[in-house]
């Protein structure tokens, strides 16, 4: 009696990869997300371990060592790989500590504005009707006011500090959250599981928080990422105009502002922090755009 061997297909081969596996494959296969993610990881590590990486204290001035050029210059040395600024502070250390400020402001502003914007967007999308009218009107008003001008004016009045910059920007940048969450909520609200939750007698709060919120998380995370970039950019611009973070904090925007008087003979003073800003913003944007592609592939063009 001949025994024919048959291979029994495994369960995995029948069902295929799970949604989680497929998502992971898309994330790791997406070049933008990977490049942005790696750069961002390096930046976060730099921010967390700044005291360990930085060769010098970012605040120690040394008038004998003012405006030392970077190491690739003829007169540069490895003591100050990126040279020193107009007060003799080690530039590399200041640049490294600068990541902390940018990331702190970016993340906290996105957090504040996400709460405000999502609450408004969820309410407008879920309740519709008059609530929606009011929220849409508020969004229109907010969009009409130029962010930079209002932020500058308010910061100038209250006095500039890290907390003030974060709260002012947080109170201004909620518009995109509200717009996106409103339309996402409207879509989800029309789905069957929301109707069945309502039929089961769930309260509005429960439907919003346990049925709708988890299902609008994807666009929320994408917007939050892009808003972090927006906040970082605005902080840099405010600090550059002298109405953001105050000296001696090593904010990149402030460093560019302090270096612009030397831009002719010591251009690295503005080139280096500017490049860092550019790389950080590029990484965040690549992450945000990439995540939009990954979580909603059907919207890709």
């Amino acid at each position: 009696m001949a025994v024919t061997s048959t291979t029994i297909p495994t369960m995995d081969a029948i069902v295929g990869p799970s949604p989680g596996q497929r998502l992971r494959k898309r994330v790791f296969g997406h070049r933008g997300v990977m490049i942005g993610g790696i750069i961002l990881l390096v930046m976060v590590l730099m921010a967390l371990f700044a005291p360990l990486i930085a060769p010098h204290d970012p605040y120690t001035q040394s008038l004998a060592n003012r405006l030392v050029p970077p190491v690739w210059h003829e007169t540069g040395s490895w003591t100050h790989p990126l040279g020193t600024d107009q007060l003799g502070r080690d530039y590399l250390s200041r640049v490294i500590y600068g990541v902390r400020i940018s990331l702190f402001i970016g993340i906290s502003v996105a957090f504040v504005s996400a709460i405000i914007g999502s609450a408004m967007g969820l309410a407008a999308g879920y309740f519709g009707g008059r609530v929606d009218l009011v929220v849409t009107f508020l969004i229109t008003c907010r969009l009409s006011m130029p962010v930079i001008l209002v932020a500058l004016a308010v910061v100038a009045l209250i006095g500039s500090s890290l907390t003030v910059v974060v709260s002012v920007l947080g109170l201004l940048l909620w518009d995109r959250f509200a717009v996106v969450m409103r339309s996402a909520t409207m879509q989800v609200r029309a789905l069957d599981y929301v109707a069945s939750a309502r039929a089961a007698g769930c309260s509005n709060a429960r439907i919003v928080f346990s049925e709708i919120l988890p299902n609008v998380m994807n666009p929320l995370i994408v917007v939050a990422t892009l808003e972090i970039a927006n906040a970082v950019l605005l902080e840099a611009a405010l600090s550059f105009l002298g109405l953001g973070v105050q000296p001696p904090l090593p904010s990149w925007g402030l460093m560019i502002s302090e270096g612009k008087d030397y831009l002719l003979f010591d251009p690295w003073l503005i080139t280096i922090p500017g490049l860092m800003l550019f790389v950080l913003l590029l990484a965040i944007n690549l992450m945000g755009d990439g995540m939009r592609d990954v979580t909603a592939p059907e919207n890709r063009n």
Partner: protein
Amino acid sequence: MLVYTAKRLVLALLVAFTISVLSFSLLFLAGDPAAAIAGETATDQEIERIRTMFGFDRPIWLQYLEWVSRAIQGDFGRSYYFGMPVTELILSRIPVTLTLAGSAMAFALVVGIPMGVIAALYPNSIIDRIALTIAVCGQALPSFWFALMLIVLFGFMIPILPPSGSDSWQHFILPTIVLGYYATPSLMRLTRTGMLEVLSADYIRTARAKGLFPRTVLFKHALRNAVIPVVSVAAVEFGFMLGGSIVIETVFALHGTGYLAWESIRRADFPTVQALILVFSLFYVVLTFVSDLLNAWLDPRIRVA
């Protein structure tokens, strides 16, 4: 169309009213304007005197009513610093800003639309990728830093353009590029998406099947329809450019309204700041109103909704 226009107009007026309240009360929400004018070294008596002199001791709503009823007639009070009527001051500065924003918009359209069209015609080609790279980099480029880099490059290293000032048309070239570059990515992406959508439409296939010149199909049939959303976004972008002009004008020392705003904020020149916030916002309100109407006129389906 008439009903739609009326609805939009009421909305625009409501927004304008809300903004006027906000831009006026901003001063009072943020702190004591009298103390801010008096400066840090002032005594309590001096602050009190300034308070009564400027009328800050009266109820806020009364001050608002007075301010807004004058503002409607075009009177924003006197600038504390320049000592001249704010309206005159703004009017003398606005041509510079409008020239800058206008030329930047032209730059963005001239660069963005052709790039978007080419990117849509050859999707995933090298040209498309370059266009996408430029767009991605544009979003990440801090405008003030880009401006400084251009000043170093073209103002000093290859000295062909004046680094700052607003005396001749050459002074506007670098600011135009910086401000325009900022709006280019969104216009380009919009053109690309619009073109891709339109090019796959049935009427394009029909036009091609009829044997029309590819050029005719592209420009007369496809582009015309694809740029409809671009028109309205361009109007909104123009409004954003006025806001962005604050940073750019400060870097290039262009004496427009953006520079005026920065100067006035630093000098605690409240009437000027209030007026500028209102004027900038009203620009945006008017632009969105016009673009809404333009859209409704181009696409009759919007009017019903």
